[in-house]
Protein backbone atom coordinates (compact mmCIF):
# COMPACT_ATOMS: atom_id res chain seq x y z
CA UNK A 1 0.00 0.00 0.00
CA UNK A 2 2.94 2.32 0.69
CA UNK A 3 4.20 1.75 -2.83
CA UNK A 4 0.75 2.54 -4.18
CA UNK A 5 0.34 5.74 -2.19
CA UNK A 6 3.79 6.98 -3.12
CA UNK A 7 3.56 5.70 -6.68
CA UNK A 8 6.68 3.57 -6.36
CA UNK A 9 6.82 0.79 -8.91
CA UNK A 10 7.31 -2.59 -7.29
CA UNK A 11 7.33 -5.98 -8.94
CA UNK A 12 5.65 -8.50 -6.74
CA UNK A 13 6.92 -11.99 -6.74
CA UNK A 14 4.60 -14.43 -5.06
CA UNK A 15 6.61 -17.03 -3.24
CA UNK A 16 5.44 -20.55 -3.68
CA UNK A 17 8.53 -22.53 -2.79
CA UNK A 18 8.21 -23.13 0.89
CA UNK A 19 11.13 -25.23 1.97
CA UNK A 20 9.97 -27.05 5.12
CA UNK A 21 13.38 -26.64 6.73
CA UNK A 22 14.42 -23.18 5.61
CA UNK A 23 11.14 -21.33 5.02
CA UNK A 24 10.92 -19.01 2.04
CA UNK A 25 14.55 -18.85 1.14
CA UNK A 26 15.25 -18.30 -2.55
CA UNK A 27 18.33 -16.44 -1.31
CA UNK A 28 16.10 -13.55 -0.19
CA UNK A 29 17.16 -13.56 3.40
CA UNK A 30 18.66 -16.04 5.83
CA UNK A 31 15.56 -16.05 8.04
CA UNK A 32 13.37 -17.24 5.20
CA UNK A 33 10.90 -14.51 6.10
CA UNK A 34 8.56 -12.64 3.83
CA UNK A 35 7.97 -9.87 2.90
CA UNK A 36 11.48 -9.12 1.66
CA UNK A 37 12.21 -6.09 -0.52
CA UNK A 38 15.08 -6.10 -3.00
CA UNK A 39 16.38 -2.64 -2.16
CA UNK A 40 19.76 -3.18 -3.84
CA UNK A 41 20.58 -5.77 -6.47
CA UNK A 42 20.48 -9.11 -4.69
CA UNK A 43 20.06 -7.46 -1.26
CA UNK A 44 16.81 -7.90 0.57
CA UNK A 45 15.39 -5.64 3.24
CA UNK A 46 13.12 -6.93 6.01
CA UNK A 47 11.08 -7.05 8.17
CA UNK A 48 7.87 -5.29 7.23
CA UNK A 49 8.07 -2.11 9.41
CA UNK A 50 11.60 -1.54 8.07
CA UNK A 51 10.36 -2.04 4.50
CA UNK A 52 7.48 0.39 5.10
CA UNK A 53 9.80 3.02 6.51
CA UNK A 54 12.21 2.63 3.62
CA UNK A 55 9.45 2.97 1.01
CA UNK A 56 7.99 5.92 2.89
CA UNK A 57 11.39 7.62 3.03
CA UNK A 58 11.70 7.38 -0.76
CA UNK A 59 8.75 9.72 -1.15
CA UNK A 60 8.86 13.50 -1.20
CA UNK A 61 5.66 13.49 0.86
CA UNK A 62 6.24 10.74 3.45
CA UNK A 63 3.35 9.59 5.63
CA UNK A 64 5.48 9.44 8.77
CA UNK A 65 5.23 12.85 10.44
CA UNK A 66 8.38 14.94 10.88
CA UNK A 67 7.44 15.77 14.45
CA UNK A 68 9.10 13.18 16.66
CA UNK A 69 6.23 12.64 19.08
CA UNK A 70 3.69 12.37 16.26
CA UNK A 71 5.96 9.91 14.43
CA UNK A 72 6.15 7.65 17.48
CA UNK A 73 2.36 7.80 17.89
CA UNK A 74 2.08 6.49 14.33
CA UNK A 75 4.69 3.81 14.96
CA UNK A 76 2.77 2.83 18.09
CA UNK A 77 -0.42 2.25 16.07
CA UNK A 78 1.55 0.41 13.40
CA UNK A 79 3.13 -1.87 16.03
CA UNK A 80 -0.27 -2.51 17.60
CA UNK A 81 -1.62 -3.50 14.19
CA UNK A 82 1.38 -5.73 13.52
CA UNK A 83 0.84 -7.40 16.89
CA UNK A 84 -2.75 -8.08 15.92
CA UNK A 85 -1.67 -9.57 12.60
CA UNK A 86 0.99 -11.66 14.37
CA UNK A 87 -1.53 -13.07 16.84
CA UNK A 88 -3.71 -14.05 13.89
CA UNK A 89 -0.78 -15.61 12.06
CA UNK A 90 0.27 -17.56 15.13
CA UNK A 91 -3.30 -18.79 15.43
CA UNK A 92 -3.26 -19.82 11.79
CA UNK A 93 0.01 -21.74 12.23
CA UNK A 94 -1.26 -23.40 15.38
CA UNK A 95 -4.29 -24.65 13.45
CA UNK A 96 -2.15 -25.88 10.57
CA UNK A 97 -0.40 -28.30 12.90
CA UNK A 98 -1.47 -31.93 12.90
CA UNK A 99 -4.64 -32.01 14.98
CA UNK A 100 -3.17 -34.05 17.82
CA UNK A 101 -0.45 -31.40 18.22
CA UNK A 102 -2.80 -28.47 18.89
CA UNK A 103 -2.29 -26.74 22.22
CA UNK A 104 -5.63 -25.36 23.50
CA UNK A 105 -3.91 -23.03 25.96
CA UNK A 106 -1.99 -21.19 23.25
CA UNK A 107 -5.04 -21.02 20.98
CA UNK A 108 -6.93 -19.33 23.82
CA UNK A 109 -4.01 -16.91 24.33
CA UNK A 110 -4.02 -15.81 20.67
CA UNK A 111 -7.80 -15.57 20.47
CA UNK A 112 -7.83 -13.48 23.64
CA UNK A 113 -5.10 -11.15 22.35
CA UNK A 114 -7.11 -10.58 19.16
CA UNK A 115 -10.39 -9.94 20.99
CA UNK A 116 -8.74 -7.67 23.61
CA UNK A 117 -7.00 -5.63 20.94
CA UNK A 118 -10.07 -5.23 18.75
CA UNK A 119 -12.06 -4.04 21.78
CA UNK A 120 -9.27 -1.67 22.73
CA UNK A 121 -9.13 -0.13 19.25
CA UNK A 122 -12.92 0.17 19.20
CA UNK A 123 -12.60 2.36 22.28
CA UNK A 124 -10.05 4.55 20.53
CA UNK A 125 -11.59 4.81 17.05
CA UNK A 126 -12.22 8.52 17.53
CA UNK A 127 -8.44 9.06 17.66
CA UNK A 128 -7.98 7.52 14.19
CA UNK A 129 -7.90 9.65 11.08
CA UNK A 130 -10.01 8.53 8.09
CA UNK A 131 -6.95 8.77 5.80
CA UNK A 132 -4.12 6.45 4.87
CA UNK A 133 -1.59 7.16 7.60
CA UNK A 134 1.43 5.12 8.63
CA UNK A 135 -0.57 3.55 11.46
CA UNK A 136 -3.79 3.10 9.49
CA UNK A 137 -2.06 1.10 6.77
CA UNK A 138 -1.07 -1.43 9.43
CA UNK A 139 -4.54 -1.48 10.95
CA UNK A 140 -6.49 -1.96 7.72
CA UNK A 141 -4.15 -4.75 6.61
CA UNK A 142 -4.39 -6.50 9.99
CA UNK A 143 -8.20 -6.30 10.11
CA UNK A 144 -8.50 -7.79 6.63
CA UNK A 145 -6.09 -10.57 7.57
CA UNK A 146 -8.35 -11.44 10.52
CA UNK A 147 -11.42 -11.38 8.30
CA UNK A 148 -9.84 -13.72 5.79
CA UNK A 149 -7.63 -16.07 7.74
CA UNK A 150 -7.72 -18.25 10.80
CA UNK A 151 -10.00 -16.42 13.11
CA UNK A 152 -13.73 -16.96 13.08
CA UNK A 153 -13.98 -14.04 15.47
CA UNK A 154 -16.43 -11.66 13.83
CA UNK A 155 -14.66 -8.49 14.78
CA UNK A 156 -17.23 -6.23 13.11
CA UNK A 157 -19.86 -7.51 15.52
CA UNK A 158 -17.80 -6.46 18.55
CA UNK A 159 -16.45 -3.27 17.05
CA UNK A 160 -19.17 -1.54 15.00
CA UNK A 161 -17.41 1.83 15.10
CA UNK A 162 -14.18 0.29 13.90
CA UNK A 163 -16.10 -1.57 11.17
CA UNK A 164 -17.52 1.74 10.02
CA UNK A 165 -14.06 3.35 10.04
CA UNK A 166 -12.61 0.41 8.06
CA UNK A 167 -15.46 0.66 5.55
CA UNK A 168 -14.28 4.18 4.71
CA UNK A 169 -11.16 2.68 3.09
CA UNK A 170 -12.83 -0.05 1.05
CA UNK A 171 -13.65 2.09 -1.96
CA UNK A 172 -10.26 3.76 -2.22
CA UNK A 173 -8.04 2.72 -5.16
CA UNK A 174 -5.20 1.84 -2.78
CA UNK A 175 -7.43 -0.68 -1.03
CA UNK A 176 -9.03 -2.04 -4.19
CA UNK A 177 -5.71 -2.60 -5.93
CA UNK A 178 -4.21 -4.50 -3.01
CA UNK A 179 -7.13 -6.59 -2.00
CA UNK A 180 -6.74 -9.17 -4.76
CA UNK A 181 -3.74 -10.66 -3.01
CA UNK A 182 -6.01 -12.30 -0.47
CA UNK A 183 -7.17 -14.71 -3.11
CA UNK A 184 -3.61 -15.91 -3.62
CA UNK A 185 -2.57 -16.26 -0.02
Amino acid at each position, binding site marked *: MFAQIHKIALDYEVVDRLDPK*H*GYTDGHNPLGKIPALEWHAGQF*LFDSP*VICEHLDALSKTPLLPKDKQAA*FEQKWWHALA*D*GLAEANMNLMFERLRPE*NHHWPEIIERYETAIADTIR*FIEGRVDDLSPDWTYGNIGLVAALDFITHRACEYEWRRYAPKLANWHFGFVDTPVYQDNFGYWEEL
Partner: protein
Amino acid sequence: MKLICHPISPYARKAMILAHLHGIDVDMVLPEKNGAHGYRAGDNPLGKIPALEWKPQQYLFDSPVICEYLDSLSDTPILPTDPHQHMLSKWQHALGDGLADAVYNYRYEIVRPKELHWDEMILRHESAIKDVIASLDKICDWFGGPWNYGNLAVVTALDYASYRAAHIDWRAMSPKLAAWHANFIGDAAYIATYDYPA
Protein backbone atom coordinates in the same frame (compact mmCIF):
# COMPACT_ATOMS: atom_id res chain seq x y z
CA MET B 1 10.70 5.30 32.84
CA LYS B 2 9.32 1.84 33.48
CA LEU B 3 10.23 -0.98 31.14
CA ILE B 4 8.02 -3.97 31.76
CA CYS B 5 9.99 -7.06 30.98
CA HIS B 6 11.94 -10.08 32.07
CA PRO B 7 15.73 -9.71 32.27
CA ILE B 8 16.43 -12.76 30.11
CA SER B 9 14.53 -11.24 27.20
CA PRO B 10 16.99 -10.16 24.49
CA TYR B 11 14.38 -7.64 23.30
CA ALA B 12 14.41 -5.94 26.70
CA ARG B 13 18.17 -6.12 26.98
CA LYS B 14 18.59 -4.09 23.79
CA ALA B 15 16.62 -1.30 25.45
CA MET B 16 18.57 -1.65 28.70
CA ILE B 17 21.93 -1.41 26.89
CA LEU B 18 20.76 1.66 25.00
CA ALA B 19 19.50 3.29 28.21
CA HIS B 20 22.87 2.53 29.79
CA LEU B 21 24.79 4.06 26.87
CA HIS B 22 22.67 7.20 26.86
CA GLY B 23 22.42 7.53 30.65
CA ILE B 24 18.61 7.29 30.57
CA ASP B 25 16.99 6.12 33.77
CA VAL B 26 14.96 3.00 32.92
CA ASP B 27 13.62 0.67 35.60
CA MET B 28 13.02 -2.88 34.60
CA VAL B 29 9.77 -4.05 36.18
CA LEU B 30 8.80 -7.70 36.15
CA PRO B 31 5.51 -8.34 34.38
CA GLU B 32 2.44 -9.86 35.96
CA LYS B 33 0.81 -12.52 33.87
CA ASN B 34 -2.94 -12.44 33.58
CA GLY B 35 -3.82 -15.85 32.14
CA ALA B 36 -4.82 -15.80 28.48
CA HIS B 37 -4.60 -12.00 28.48
CA GLY B 38 -0.82 -12.21 28.66
CA TYR B 39 1.14 -9.42 30.27
CA ARG B 40 -1.40 -6.65 30.23
CA ALA B 41 -0.51 -3.22 31.43
CA GLY B 42 -2.22 0.05 30.62
CA ASP B 43 -2.91 0.43 26.94
CA ASN B 44 -1.07 -2.68 25.82
CA PRO B 45 -3.98 -4.92 24.85
CA LEU B 46 -1.76 -7.46 23.11
CA GLY B 47 -0.18 -8.27 26.46
CA LYS B 48 3.26 -8.14 24.86
CA ILE B 49 6.55 -7.37 26.57
CA PRO B 50 8.81 -5.44 26.57
CA ALA B 51 6.61 -2.39 26.98
CA LEU B 52 7.99 1.04 27.87
CA GLU B 53 5.86 3.50 29.85
CA TRP B 54 6.64 6.49 27.67
CA LYS B 55 3.70 8.51 28.99
CA PRO B 56 1.71 7.90 32.17
CA GLN B 57 -0.12 4.58 31.68
CA GLN B 58 0.80 4.55 27.99
CA TYR B 59 3.07 1.78 26.86
CA LEU B 60 5.25 1.79 23.81
CA PHE B 61 6.08 -1.44 21.99
CA ASP B 62 7.46 -3.39 20.28
CA SER B 63 11.17 -3.52 20.94
CA PRO B 64 12.54 -1.79 17.79
CA VAL B 65 10.13 1.11 18.39
CA ILE B 66 11.22 1.26 22.05
CA CYS B 67 14.89 1.32 21.03
CA GLU B 68 14.33 4.01 18.44
CA TYR B 69 12.41 6.11 20.96
CA LEU B 70 15.08 5.78 23.67
CA ASP B 71 17.76 6.61 21.11
CA SER B 72 15.84 9.71 20.02
CA LEU B 73 15.94 11.02 23.61
CA SER B 74 19.71 11.32 23.44
CA ASP B 75 21.69 14.26 22.12
CA THR B 76 24.06 11.76 20.53
CA PRO B 77 21.80 9.08 19.03
CA ILE B 78 23.47 5.97 17.67
CA LEU B 79 21.05 5.61 14.76
CA PRO B 80 22.74 7.33 11.80
CA THR B 81 20.90 10.22 10.15
CA ASP B 82 22.18 9.41 6.66
CA PRO B 83 19.16 7.65 5.07
CA HIS B 84 21.15 4.74 3.66
CA GLN B 85 23.18 4.11 6.85
CA HIS B 86 19.95 4.52 8.83
CA MET B 87 18.15 1.76 6.93
CA LEU B 88 21.25 -0.43 6.92
CA SER B 89 21.37 -0.19 10.73
CA LYS B 90 17.71 -1.12 10.93
CA TRP B 91 18.31 -4.02 8.57
CA GLN B 92 21.08 -5.37 10.79
CA HIS B 93 18.86 -4.82 13.82
CA ALA B 94 16.05 -6.78 12.14
CA LEU B 95 18.49 -9.60 11.37
CA GLY B 96 19.45 -9.77 15.06
CA ASP B 97 15.80 -9.70 16.08
CA GLY B 98 15.11 -12.47 13.58
CA LEU B 99 17.68 -14.63 15.35
CA ALA B 100 16.06 -13.84 18.71
CA ASP B 101 12.64 -14.70 17.22
CA ALA B 102 13.94 -18.04 15.93
CA VAL B 103 15.37 -18.90 19.37
CA TYR B 104 12.12 -17.78 21.03
CA ASN B 105 10.04 -19.89 18.65
CA TYR B 106 12.29 -22.88 19.28
CA ARG B 107 11.92 -22.36 23.01
CA TYR B 108 8.12 -22.12 22.75
CA GLU B 109 8.02 -25.34 20.80
CA ILE B 110 9.94 -27.31 23.41
CA VAL B 111 8.09 -25.93 26.45
CA ARG B 112 4.83 -27.36 25.14
CA PRO B 113 3.55 -30.51 26.81
CA LYS B 114 5.80 -33.24 25.42
CA GLU B 115 3.08 -35.05 23.45
CA LEU B 116 2.35 -31.79 21.59
CA HIS B 117 5.90 -31.30 20.29
CA TRP B 118 6.11 -31.21 16.54
CA ASP B 119 9.50 -32.41 15.34
CA GLU B 120 9.21 -30.73 11.94
CA MET B 121 8.67 -27.36 13.61
CA ILE B 122 11.61 -27.85 15.97
CA LEU B 123 13.74 -28.60 12.91
CA ARG B 124 12.45 -25.49 11.12
CA HIS B 125 13.38 -23.22 14.04
CA GLU B 126 16.78 -24.88 14.52
CA SER B 127 17.50 -24.39 10.82
CA ALA B 128 16.52 -20.73 11.04
CA ILE B 129 18.91 -20.26 13.99
CA LYS B 130 21.78 -21.94 12.13
CA ASP B 131 21.05 -20.11 8.85
CA VAL B 132 21.11 -16.67 10.49
CA ILE B 133 24.27 -17.46 12.41
CA ALA B 134 26.00 -18.63 9.23
CA SER B 135 24.98 -15.43 7.51
CA LEU B 136 26.05 -13.21 10.43
CA ASP B 137 29.42 -14.97 10.38
CA LYS B 138 29.84 -13.99 6.73
CA ILE B 139 29.11 -10.30 7.25
CA CYS B 140 30.37 -9.58 10.77
CA ASP B 141 33.58 -7.91 9.51
CA TRP B 142 31.32 -5.11 8.43
CA PHE B 143 29.53 -4.72 11.83
CA GLY B 144 32.26 -2.77 13.61
CA GLY B 145 32.03 -2.07 17.28
CA PRO B 146 31.45 -1.71 20.02
CA TRP B 147 27.82 -0.55 20.05
CA ASN B 148 25.74 0.62 17.16
CA TYR B 149 22.06 0.21 16.46
CA GLY B 150 22.49 -3.07 14.58
CA ASN B 151 25.01 -4.57 17.01
CA LEU B 152 22.56 -4.14 19.90
CA ALA B 153 20.22 -6.70 18.40
CA VAL B 154 22.91 -9.13 17.19
CA VAL B 155 24.87 -9.30 20.47
CA THR B 156 21.75 -9.73 22.63
CA ALA B 157 20.30 -12.39 20.29
CA LEU B 158 23.56 -14.38 20.35
CA ASP B 159 23.58 -14.40 24.16
CA TYR B 160 19.96 -15.48 24.16
CA ALA B 161 20.82 -18.29 21.73
CA SER B 162 23.66 -19.43 24.01
CA TYR B 163 21.20 -19.62 26.89
CA ARG B 164 18.01 -21.00 25.32
CA ALA B 165 19.40 -23.09 22.47
CA ALA B 166 22.69 -24.11 24.08
CA HIS B 167 22.82 -27.36 22.08
CA ILE B 168 23.57 -25.28 18.98
CA ASP B 169 27.23 -24.46 19.47
CA TRP B 170 27.24 -21.28 17.41
CA ARG B 171 30.77 -20.32 18.47
CA ALA B 172 32.16 -23.53 16.99
CA MET B 173 30.09 -23.02 13.82
CA SER B 174 31.13 -19.42 13.32
CA PRO B 175 34.56 -18.55 14.72
CA LYS B 176 34.65 -15.08 13.12
CA LEU B 177 31.34 -14.15 14.69
CA ALA B 178 32.54 -15.57 18.04
CA ALA B 179 35.67 -13.40 17.88
CA TRP B 180 33.57 -10.33 17.04
CA HIS B 181 31.15 -11.08 19.92
CA ALA B 182 34.07 -11.54 22.35
CA ASN B 183 34.89 -7.82 21.92
CA PHE B 184 31.73 -6.93 23.83
CA ILE B 185 32.21 -9.16 26.85
CA GLY B 186 34.29 -6.66 28.85
CA ASP B 187 32.05 -3.72 27.96
CA ALA B 188 30.33 -1.89 30.83
CA ALA B 189 26.86 -1.84 29.20
CA TYR B 190 27.23 -5.52 28.31
CA ILE B 191 28.17 -6.49 31.86
CA ALA B 192 25.52 -4.29 33.49
CA THR B 193 22.74 -5.93 31.46
CA TYR B 194 23.94 -9.55 31.34
CA ASP B 195 21.59 -11.50 33.56
CA TYR B 196 21.70 -15.13 32.46
CA PRO B 197 22.13 -17.76 35.15
CA ALA B 198 25.52 -19.45 34.92
